[in-house]
């Protein structure tokens, strides 16, 4: 072939490849519907990125899904890596693998495979527990003392043997480590009472010593703090028991113990050998409030769980291998796993690029990939079998191959939270003039129940679910999510989008408190109108849409109503929220432990994480505080159900917030993955308890 011909061929090849690349891709033959993604995405969801943070903290710079890979006909990939489960996440890596430190789902879901507590969830159930490192337990009549018999013959990965003192050490190490911003405010609450639910062990030590700050705590008092903590968890190696002395009856204690931040048992001897605290009360403060990098369990692990940490290369992969000496020799539940794990190796990678994740799934190299809600429609043609929470399955696309679970309740609720008593000290630009003059709102604007109800009726819940959540959500009914004790099964949410009712409620309001309803009062809100700013954290498009939907609903009923949506950087927004200056705040909550108390306290208690920014009217707040406390101290499940149902109903009647939505999860797995079930209490159900899974061609 002459040089010239060769060149022409090469050139033609190049041009053809360019044209091919530029051509529209062929429609998938099996696509049942064309999905138009209208959400201007960017999402790495929340729930995955930072468990304890806001439910939808989102930040990615990648413009998605504009560069979505081309859709080609669905072809079933080959079965690969027979003994290895390859998990591709896309929402960040753990902060650390120290269970006592971890307060985010990326870390806790991995630790759940390495460490074990005394109890574990009974398969998909969130309110029933089976023994794990305990064989059984008993509770005293007051419900504040729990005695656990510790299992014999359990080995740690590095060779140690489980003894009761390891369990006690684990717990008091966790409490005394108490890093700032960590999960142990719940532990202090449980063992010492709600007044000690503080941010770090330093604050806790100061509070317990009656001092203003940690700096004022004397060495003797520090020892006393340590001894007080130790007195709450008492091990008896001879009797083979561990006793937990709680502040009061705590019905959710097992749920709390199933969480690794409190329950993930470590080997005391091994910890000491590797440089951690030895349990001496004279020195605990040297290990207190560490940074993630300062604990010895940052990137090494020694638990009793079915998987051992092989290695973690940050930015690349976390690899777990099956622990062949795993103690369990009886099925966890009927048909459940026993003995060493079926899957021998687990590779967990965090890949932020959606196209790469999808390609790995299509090539069969990934057994599970994280699919953010906006991309879910893209995967629908690939799904051969759809299953739901009850594991009832139906056929999807006959030519597809994936196994997908959808409509799964997620323990995360996002409301728009009213501020009933807005802080105006030093000025407040969010509420304009601060007066009822059409150019602002007064500080107690949302203290009027009719205003709150009007806002609820003006929010188009269905548009939120359809447009912002791609259909994967349900309207929240109140602070307690669907499926949990206290959720009003069979009852529709009290508010629906109804502009007429919205207008009616606005006309019933009496913002100027002259006793005349606004509909009949020229000086009140219906005639005067209002203006305020509604902020969201920039980058979070779900919240932007929620804000825009509310704005549209409100402004549609009266041209004098003016809501301005303003994007703000996250920390700046939080600072304003903390100062009590935001009139409305859209922010979600993901549970820490699976009990309605975690929700009721957070949203409705006057000292709850969100309750305290709502600034409810003292009379209303007192009612909620009483109910929350009552629910927390009642031990009988049915009695608690009644209390939480009352709370749930009352939270709607009072229109405390706009209870916007609860996201529904959806998981996609390769067809050869067996044994999956969805437990909403898991941080990441597809890889939170890999022991139950197997891989079969």
């Amino acid at each position, binding site marked *: 072939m002459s040089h*010239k011909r060769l*060149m*022409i061929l090469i*050139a033609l090849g*190049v*041009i053809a490849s*360019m044209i091919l*690349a530029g051509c529209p891709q062929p429609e998938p033959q099996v696509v049942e519907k064309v999905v138009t993604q209208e959400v201007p995405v960017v999402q790495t969801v929340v729930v995955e990125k930072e468990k*304890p*943070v*806001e439910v939808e903290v989102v930040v*990615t*710079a990648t413009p998605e899904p504009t*560069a979505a*890979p*081309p859709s*080609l006909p669905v*072809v079933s990939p*080959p079965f690969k*890596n027979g003994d*290895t489960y390859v998990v591709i996440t896309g929402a960040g*890596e753990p*902060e*650390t693998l120290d269970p006592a430190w971890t*307060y985010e789902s990326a870390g806790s879901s991995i630790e759940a495979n390495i460490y074990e507590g005394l109890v574990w969830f009974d398969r998909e159930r969130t309110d029933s527990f089976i023994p794990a490192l305990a064989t059984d337990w008993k509770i005293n009549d007051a419900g504040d003392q729990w005695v656990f018999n510790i299992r014999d013959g359990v080995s740690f990965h590095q060779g140690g043997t489980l003894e009761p003192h390891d369990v006690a050490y684990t717990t008091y190490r966790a409490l005394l480590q108490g890093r*700032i*911003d*960590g999960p142990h*405010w719940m532990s202090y609450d449980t063992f010492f009472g709600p007044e000690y639910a503080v*941010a770090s062990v330093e604050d806790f030590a100061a509070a317990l010593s009656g001092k203003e700050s940690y700096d004022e705590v004397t060495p003797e008092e520090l020892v006393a703090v340590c001894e007080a903590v130790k007195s709450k968890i008492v091990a008896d190696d001879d009797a083979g028991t561990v006793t937990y002395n709680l502040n009061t009856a705590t019905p959710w204690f097992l749920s709390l113990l199933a969480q690794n931040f409190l329950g993930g048992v470590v080997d005391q001897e091994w910890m000491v050998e590797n440089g951690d605290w030895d349990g001496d009360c004279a020195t605990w403060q040297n290990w207190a409030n560490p940074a993630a990098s300062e604990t010895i369990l940052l*990137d090494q692990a020694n638990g009793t769980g079915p998987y051992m940490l092989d290695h*973690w*290369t*940050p*930015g*690349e992969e976390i*690899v777990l291998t099956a622990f062949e000496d795993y103690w369990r020799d009886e099925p966890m539940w009927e048909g459940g796993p026993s003995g060493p794990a079926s899957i021998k*190796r687990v*590779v967990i990678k965090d*890949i*932020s*690029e959606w*196209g*790469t994740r*999808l*390609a790995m799934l*299509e*090539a*069969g*190299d990934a057994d599970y990939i994280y699919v953010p809600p906006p991309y879910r429609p893209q995967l629908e043609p690939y799904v051969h079998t759809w299953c739901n929470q009850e594991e009832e399955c139906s056929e999807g696309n006959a030519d597809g191959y994936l196994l997908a679970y959808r409509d799964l309740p997620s323990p995360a609720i996002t409301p728009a939270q009213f501020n009933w008593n807005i802080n105006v000290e030093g000025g407040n630009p969010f509420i304009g003039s601060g007066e009822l003059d059409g150019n602002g709102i007064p500080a107690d604007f949302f203290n009027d129940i009719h205003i709150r109800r009007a806002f609820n009726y003006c929010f188009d819940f269905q548009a939120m679910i359809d447009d912002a959540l791609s259909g994967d959500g349900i309207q929240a009914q109140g602070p307690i999510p669907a499926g949990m004790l206290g959720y009003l099964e069979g009852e529709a949410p009290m508010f629906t989008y109804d502009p007429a009712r919205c207008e009616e409620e606005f006309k019933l309001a009496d913002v100027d408190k002259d006793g005349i309803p606004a509909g009949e009062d020229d000086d009140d809100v219906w005639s005067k109108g209002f203006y305020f700013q509604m902020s969201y954290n920039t980058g979070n498009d779900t919240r932007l849409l929620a804000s825009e939907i509310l704005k549209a609903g409100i402004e549609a009923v009266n041209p004098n109503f003016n809501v301005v949506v303003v994007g703000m*950087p*996250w*920390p*700046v927004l*939080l600072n304003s929220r*903390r100062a009590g200056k935001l009139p409305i705040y859209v*922010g979600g909550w993901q549970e820490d432990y699976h009990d309605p108390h975690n929700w009721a306290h*957070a949203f409705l208690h006057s000292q709850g*994480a*969100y309750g305290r920014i709502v600034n409810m009217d003292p009379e209303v707040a007192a009612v909620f505080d009483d109910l929350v406390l009552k629910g927390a101290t009642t031990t009988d499940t049915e009695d608690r159900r009644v209390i939480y149902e009352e709370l749930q109903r009352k939270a709607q009647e009072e229109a405390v917030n706009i209870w916007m939505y609860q996201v529904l999860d959806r998981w996609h797995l390769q067809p050869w993955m067996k044994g999956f079930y969805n437990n909403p209490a898991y941080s990441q159900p597809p890889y939170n308890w890999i022991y139950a899974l197997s891989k079969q061609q």
Partner: protein
Amino acid sequence: MAGYILRRLLIMPLLLIGVTLLIFVMLSALTPYERASLYVQDIPKRQGAIEAVIEKYGLDEPIHVQYINWMFGRRDADTGMIEGGVLRGDLGWSKVGKSSVAEVLGRRLPATLELALWAAIPMLGIGIWLGVLAAVRHNTASDQVLRVASIIAWSIPTFVFGLIMLMIFYAKLDWFPPERLSEWALREVQSDSFHAITRMYTIDSLLNMRMDIFADSLRHLVLPVLTLALLNWAFMLRVTRSSMLETMRHDYVRQARAKGLHERKVIWRHAVPNGLIPVITVGGLVLIGLLNGVVITETVFNWPGMGSFMADAALSLDVISVLGVTLFSGMILIFGNLLVDVLYGVVDPRVRLR
């Protein structure tokens, strides 16, 4: 020339200080709150954490004080010990990399180096060859085709090209996977029996006499190399072509032809060596760019190199990592430029470095 090199080396610390100062000034646009939020994972539930971080790391101190702390270290209020300090060899803790910045750089550099070295072969080889060809066949059909092709190749976004390559050659055909190695090969490489000497898998596999791993690593290199090469190949083609066209108009080329030399000899012995002089400068700069990490290519192919680390760090506002990588990149840039200048002087005797 020795004096020139010495002077350039002496200037280097000043340049590095200038680069880091620039970054520091840019970072000062972020409030202490914004920077502290990086270290606080749980803002909504527990208040007060941000202030603690700001105080602990002195983020509210004047920017010049923060810069000095970063350079020389900062005395810890609790222990009284000096912590950190670039001049003390401590680039700081990488929040994104979960280890010291120096460790992360040591871990990520081999991946980037391997990718850059392999990409350099088609990028320089084919780019230069096609550039020469286009110049020699100036204004012919092949020249026109190559020019158009290079413009198209230069225009295609790397992100789009990489993803399309990935979907066709990996997702559908399963020929060329992303990442550095297949799962089985990675397991081998991580085993005790494999000696990771350079941490560049193509080289290490050869040193370990593991041709299967070598073949696997080559398979994984195909798409990222192709993606990188396409863009740079088009660039090199155009630079080479221009330079060659200019060279071929010189008298000594005409002289060579007049002597009756074979055209191939005229081109490759007389024109190319001179025509490539500017190409050395451009090629050197492109290579330096590759060594600093190629963000998009590494992201699309999940290649754990410097580029993806830099991107993660920047997106996470991991200031310490950004500064560390910037410092490292600055060093590569300065050394690389020095090398190019020296090479230029060697290749072209007319250039004397003083």
